[in-house]
């Protein structure tokens, strides 16, 4: 596909030129960054490491209406997202874009999910390669990288004064045209490649995933989980802020005559997530829940969909208030002796 560039001080013009798109970009509320629809292109910036809340919320919002109804009546009015509106996600990090490709496998599995798929298929992803990874990034261990192109329609490199844009799909090409970008030369390409290499070198944390998916189920009863679960708060930070966590709850809400069925983020770390009505809970303590979270990402999901449900964005490590470090868990899991081995 094409190679383009634009001057960084023309950022607002470039974004502002996307008149046919709903543009989403990282927006700050205080110190907190989240992807929000851009109302004023002059507020868009490329100077951020990554958003606090991952852009999964653009495809899978915190709360979304599945359908509406009137109380006491039986007509159901679906609230499926409008696929005709073109959305452009500007400045998504490669790890978060890669996460879409993982979650997509689940949402298109068997019954396609029209809500997720509808948003996903109408979205153009303009990625922004990382030059300054966050300390706990480990994307390079998960098959991604600071300049990974997976899932993206275009990838931008912030080269200081200019931004180099590499389009990867027709949709990306079309958006680049709409932005009115000029062609880039070899100088930009080289600078981008150098930047990517340098950024890769800055990623300090690594994990060799070899053997983990096969090993984890054998550690089902292993006490090593307790080392982490004993200090787990059972809160939703790690899962809500995970770009690949996709679990949700469905609730009906009514107000006088109006009603809706809505789905909202849910997390396997809450005890009520798996609580049966009878009071029985198959995952009653933090140990089972911690084990389920890690095993789901690194064993159950790959068993079903052939890919580990983790992109190495480091959010669960960065935001965990009690220092439960997924890399630490996985390293220890490798060292933990499986039960069979112990009894044998």
């Amino acid at each position, binding site marked *: 596909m094409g190679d383009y560039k634009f001057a960084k001080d023309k950022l607002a013009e470039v974004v502002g030129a996307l008149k046919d798109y709903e543009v989403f970009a990282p927006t700050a509320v205080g110190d907190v960054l989240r992807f929000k629809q851009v109302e004023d292109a002059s507020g868009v910036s490329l100077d951020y490491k990554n958003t606090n809340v991952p852009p999964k919320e653009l495809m899978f919002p915190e*709360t979304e*209406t599945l359908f509406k109804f009137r109380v006491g009546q039986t007509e159901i009015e679906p609230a499926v997202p409008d696929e005709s509106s073109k959305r452009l996600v500007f400045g998504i990090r490669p790890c978060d874009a890669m996460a879409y490709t993982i979650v997509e496998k689940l949402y298109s599995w068997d019954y396609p999910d029209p809500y997720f798929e509808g948003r996903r298929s109408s979205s153009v992803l303009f990625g922004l390669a990382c030059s300054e990874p966050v300390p706990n990034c480990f994307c390079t261990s998960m098959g991604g990288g600071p300049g990974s192109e997976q899932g993206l329609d275009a990838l931008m490199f912030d080269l200081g004064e200019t931004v180099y844009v590499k389009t990867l799909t027709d949709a990306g090409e079309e958006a680049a045209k709409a932005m009115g970008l000029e062609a880039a030369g070899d100088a930009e390409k080289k600078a981008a490649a150098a930047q990517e290499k340098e950024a890769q070198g800055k990623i300090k944390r690594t994990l060799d995933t070899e053997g983990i998916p096969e090993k984890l189920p054998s550690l089902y009863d292993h006490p090593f989980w307790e080392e982490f679960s004993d200090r787990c708060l059972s809160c939703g930070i790690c899962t809500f802020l995970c770009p690949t966590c996709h679990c949700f709850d469905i609730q009906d*809400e009514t*107000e006088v005559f*109006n*009603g*809706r069925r*809505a789905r909202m983020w849910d997390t396997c770390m809450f005890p009520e997530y798996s609580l049966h009505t009878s009071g029985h809970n198959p995952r009653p303590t933090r140990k089972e829940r911690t084990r389920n979270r890690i095993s789901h990402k690194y064993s159950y999901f790959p068993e079903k969909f052939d890919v580990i449900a983790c992109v190495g964005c480091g959010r669960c490590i960065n935001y965990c208030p009690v220092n439960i470090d997924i890399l630490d868990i996985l390293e220890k899991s490798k060292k933990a002796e499986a039960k069979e081995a112990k009894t044998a």
Partner: protein
Amino acid sequence: MSEEFEPNIVAFLCNWCSYAGADLAGTSRMHYLPNIKIIRVMCSGRVNPLFLVNALQQGADGVLISGCHPGDCHYLEGNFYARRRFMLMRKLLEHVGVDPGRVNMSWVSASEGAKFKEVIDETVAKAKEAGPMEQFRRRQLNW
């Protein structure tokens, strides 16, 4: 605010004093404002302050808790507990920016039909001044 605005007031009245006071106001043919939606509770001490928050979420423009005068509680001390809770909840709501005129409490005995009318008039007047309560209102089902 436009003069048309008629606030919705949710009032939690204790069964033994304030509800009887409201009854007396009615049987004495005193006219009190119809903006009030009464919920009878056995004691003002039964009112969980979360009821107030929930009422404000569901469209109330003001809330009122009314019970027996201190010392007259049918259950001896329920209204003392209610008083502590109310004082704190009112401060908390004020802190997040709720007009304090929306959050009211009163002591109305079974014989105080006239006071009941006054309390309602005042509560409605304060809510009217504060205008429609939009802050907490549930918005997701407005279609």
